C-alpha cells in the first residue's frame, strides 16, 4: 500500500500588517480529540452527530468543590439543584447523590423530582405559576413553598383551610442590590415594605409555618458584592422576624446566579478573567450574613440554588462539518449539523469551540452556521479555526446549562445525550427523538384522513 500524505484543504489568507506573523494567526486552542479520555470519533461512531455529552465526574467535582468552599465559610450549607438548568434524570441523580435537594419552578419539574424519589421536604417549589392542583400536591407532600405573590398566598391559605393541613412556606424577596436590571417582577419587594406585609399575613395564619426567606437576584451576576447586599438584607429580615414574632426560621436561600466561565457575546475578555470566583461569591454571601449580629446557635441554614456555574463546564456538544462555503465577499463559512435550536445558549454565549482532530497549523477566520434554514442560525459570527474537511468534528464546550432544557425540536429531531461515567464507561441518558415520538402527540381530523 502506498502511503499518501494527510490531506488538508488548500487555503490562502491575506496578511494584514502588524496583525499576523507569517504563519497566519495561530490555532487558538489545541484540538480536543477526547472528552474525559473517550475519543470523540468513537462517540460519534457509536451515538451519531450531533451529540451532547455530560461528564459525571465533572458534576461531582464541581458540587464537591462548591460545597467545600461554602462549608469552610459557614456552618450550615445546603445546595438545591436548579432543575431548569438541566433536568435530565441522570444529571439530577448525580446532584442528588451528592446531597443536593431539588429546586423546581413548575409542576412538571416538581413531578420529575418526585419520580426520582426526592421527598417533598427536600423540594423547594419556586416560581410565579403554581396552579391549585400542584399547590395541593406540594403542600400535602410537605415541600417548601416559596411564595411569589399575594394571589398565591391566598390560594395557599384557602387550600390549607380546605384540607385542614399546614404548609411550610417561605417568601421570595426582591430587592435593590445595586445591579441592573432589577429583578423586581418576582416575589415581594424588600425596600417598600411589601415583603414585611407578606410576612405579617403569613404569621397570622394558623396553618402556615414560615420556614425561610428566599431571593434570586439575577443570573450570570458579574459582581459578587450584590450578593453581600442581598445576604445582609435577608439576614436582617430574618432577625426582624425573630425579634418581632419570636420565630426562628430554618433557612435563608440566596438562589442561583453565579456566572460560569462561558464568555458572553460582546465580552471582549474571556470570562475567566472577568467573572468573580466561587470563593469571592462565597465570601460576599457569608460576610453579608455575618454583618447582621446573631448568635452561632441561631444562624439559619444557608441554601444555594446554583445552576449554570455547577454544570456549564460539564456538558459538551459534538458537531460535524456539513459543508465549507464562501460568502459573497470571500469570507469563509462553515455549516455544522448543530444549530441554535439545540445550542440555545449560542444566542448569548461565545462558547469555546475546538476542533476534534489534529489539523494543520494554518488558520483562517470563519463564521459558523447551523443547519437550520434560518438567518438567525449562527453559532459564531467570527472565529479563528484551522481548515476543516467535511465530516470533521468540532467540540463545543460549556454546553451543560440550559441547552438541553431550552432546546427546540423545530425542523429536525433532537439528538442523543450520553454521560461519560466516573469509571470511563459511556451511557446513553436520553435517546434521540424519532418521528413517531413527535407525531404521536398529533391528531388528524377525520376528514383529512386517507381512507
Amino acid at each position: 500500500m502506498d502511503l499518501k500524505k494527510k490531506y488538508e484543504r488548500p487555503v490562502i489568507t491575506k496578511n494584514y500588517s502588524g496583525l499576523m506573523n507569517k504563519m497566519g494567526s495561530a490555532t487558538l486552542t489545541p484540538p480536543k480529540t477526547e472528552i474525559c479520555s473517550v475519543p470523540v470519533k468513537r462517540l460519534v461512531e457509536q451515538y451519531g452527530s450531533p451529540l451532547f455529552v455530560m461528564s459525571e465526574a465533572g458534576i461531582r467535582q464541581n458540587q464537591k468543590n462548591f460545597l467545600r468552599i461554602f462549608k469552610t465559610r459557614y456552618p450550615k450549607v445546603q445546595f438545591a439543584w436548579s432543575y431548569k438548568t438541566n433536568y435530565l434524570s441522570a444529571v439530577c441523580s448525580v446532584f442528588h447523590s451528592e446531597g443536593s435537594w431539588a429546586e423546581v419552578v413548575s409542576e412538571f419539574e416538581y413531578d420529575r423530582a418526585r419520580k426520582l424519589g426526592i421527598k417533598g421536604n427536600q423540594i423547594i417549589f419556586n416560581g410565579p405559576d403554581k396552579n391549585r392542583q400542584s399547590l395541593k400536591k406540594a403542600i400535602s407532600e410537605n415541600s417548601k413553598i416559596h411564595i411569589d405573590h399575594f394571589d398565591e398566598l391566598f390560594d395557599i391559605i384557602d387550600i390549607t383551610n380546605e384540607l385542614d393541613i399546614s404548609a411550610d412556606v417561605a417568601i421570595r424577596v426582591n430587592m435593590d442590590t445595586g445591579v441592573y436590571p432589577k429583578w423586581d417582577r418576582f416575589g415581594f419587594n424588600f425596600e417598600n415594605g411589601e415583603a414585611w406585609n407578606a410576612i405579617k399575613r403569613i404569621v397570622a395564619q394558623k396553618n402556615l409555618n414560615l420556614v425561610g426567606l428566599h431571593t434570586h437576584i439575577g443570573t450570570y451576576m458579574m459582581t459578587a458584592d450584590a450578593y453581600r447586599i442581598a445576604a445582609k438584607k435577608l439576614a436582617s429580615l430574618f432577625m426582624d422576624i425573630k425579634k418581632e414574632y419570636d420565630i426562628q426560621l430554618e433557612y435563608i436561600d440566596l438562589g442561583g446566579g453565579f456566572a460560569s466561565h462561558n464568555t458572553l457575546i460582546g465580552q471582549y475578555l474571556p470570562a475567566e478573567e472577568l467573572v468573580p470566583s466561587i470563593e469571592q461569591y462565597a465570601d460576599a454571601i457569608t460576610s453579608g450574613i455575618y454583618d447582621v449580629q446573631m448568635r452561632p446557635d441561631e444562624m439559619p441554614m444557608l441554601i444555594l440554588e446554583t445552576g449554570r456555574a455547577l454544570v456549564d463546564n460539564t456538558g459538551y456538544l459534538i458537531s460535524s462539518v456539513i459543508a465549507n462555503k464562501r460568502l459573497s465577499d470571500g469570507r469563509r463559512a462553515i455549516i455544522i449539523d448543530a444549530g441554535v435550536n439545540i445550542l440555545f445558549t449560542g444566542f448569548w454565549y461565545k462558547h469555546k469551540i475546538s476542533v476534534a482532530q489534529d489539523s494543520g497549523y494554518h488558520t483562517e477566520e470563519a463564521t459558523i452556521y447551523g443547519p437550520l434554514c434560518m438567518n438567525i442560525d449562527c453559532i459564531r459570527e467570527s472565529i479563528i479555526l484551522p481548515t476543516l474537511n467535511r465530516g470533521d468534528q468540532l467540540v463545543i464546550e460549556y454546553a451543560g446549562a440550559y441547552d438541553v432544557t431550552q432546546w427546540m425540536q423545530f425542523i429536525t429531531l433532537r439528538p442523543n445525550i450520553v454521560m461519560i461515567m466516573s469509571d470511563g464507561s459511556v451511557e446513553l441518558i436520553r435517546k434521540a427523538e424519532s418521528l413517531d415520538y413527535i407525531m404521536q402527540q398529533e391528531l388528524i381530523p377525520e376528514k383529512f384522513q386517507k381512507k
Partner: protein
Amino acid sequence: MKYHIPESLAISDSGFLFFARTGETFTLNQIGKEIIRLMQEGLSLDSISTKLIETYDVDEITLQKDLHDFITQLQLHKLVEEQ
C-alpha cells in the same frame, strides 16, 4: 483549463507569498503552496488534480470542490488570470 500566475509573485518555502505588484502578502498552507508552484510551472488544472490525488489521501470530488474554492480565493485577490 489553465491559470496564469503573474511574474511579480514570489513564494517562500514556508508558504509566505509576496505580490510585488500591490505590495500585499499572503500565507498559504502546504498544499496551497504546492498548487501555486504547479501553476507557475504551467500545468493545467487537470494535471494538477491528478498529481494531488496521487500524493494526498483525498477523493476526486472533495479535491475538485476545494480546488474550485481555492481558485475563487486567488481570483478574489487578483493573484491569477484565467488563460
